[in-house]
């Protein structure tokens, strides 16, 4: 399984803080995970400012995801 987490405005748009997706043998890209999430949540999340993390590190949407990975989607950070 792929463990997907959502934060801040993205969490509110999805309507949930997390989701699990079955992982195909060849794995996914982060962008493909996002497309699957959009299908399940029934909402569009792609936008120029969306950020992603893979196993708690910032990654581009082209990064490869494998079984048991943790993927997160969130808006630009605003800490400090």
């Amino acid at each position, binding site marked *: 399984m792929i463990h997907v*987490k959502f*934060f*801040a*405005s993205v969490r509110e748009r999805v309507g949930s803080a997390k989701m699990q997706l079955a992982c195909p043998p060849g794995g996914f890209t982060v962008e493909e995970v996002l497309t699957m999430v959009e299908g399940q949540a029934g909402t569009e999340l792609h936008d120029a*400012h969306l950020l992603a*993390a893979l196993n*708690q*590190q*910032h990654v581009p949407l082209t990064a490869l995801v494998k079984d048991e990975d943790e993927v*997160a989607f*969130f*808006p*630009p*950070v*605003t*800490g*400090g």
Partner: protein
Amino acid sequence: MIVKVQKEDFDASAACAEMATVSGAGALVTFVGTVRDYSDASDILSMEIEHYPGMTEKELERVSMQAAKAYDIIDSLIIHRYGLLQPQDNIVLVAVWSRHRAAAFDACRFLIDVLKSSAPFWKKEITPQGSRWVTDCPGCRAGSREGHRHSVPSAHPDQRLHSS
């Protein structure tokens, strides 16, 4: 190099005093970020800070390591709060110890600037008109030395510019 992510408030002086074992330091530079009471022409009643447990600590440790490599510093401390905060409450403390002041000033600024653009925290402002997520501000991210505009209610004419 210490990183803390916590709900509880902090006392900057006490937190730095707890690092008293820092030896060889001739300079200590601190930055404390606090909750503003205005934004985008609206008063702020309170602020909720969300974070990504696990990744937050890793990112703060990563930027602390970057600072230790890039600057001639002896030690650093970052405390960042999450949860429900009120105007004027402390949000973040960055403290840097070094042999000489220049490295401490530079590393402290580096740490606050980098964590603002990489550590996974998100602020939600609660205003009289409702709540809204704070969006990424290019001026805040750049840390403009001259300050930059956030719309300010007329009740706060002395706060038209800020540079935090």
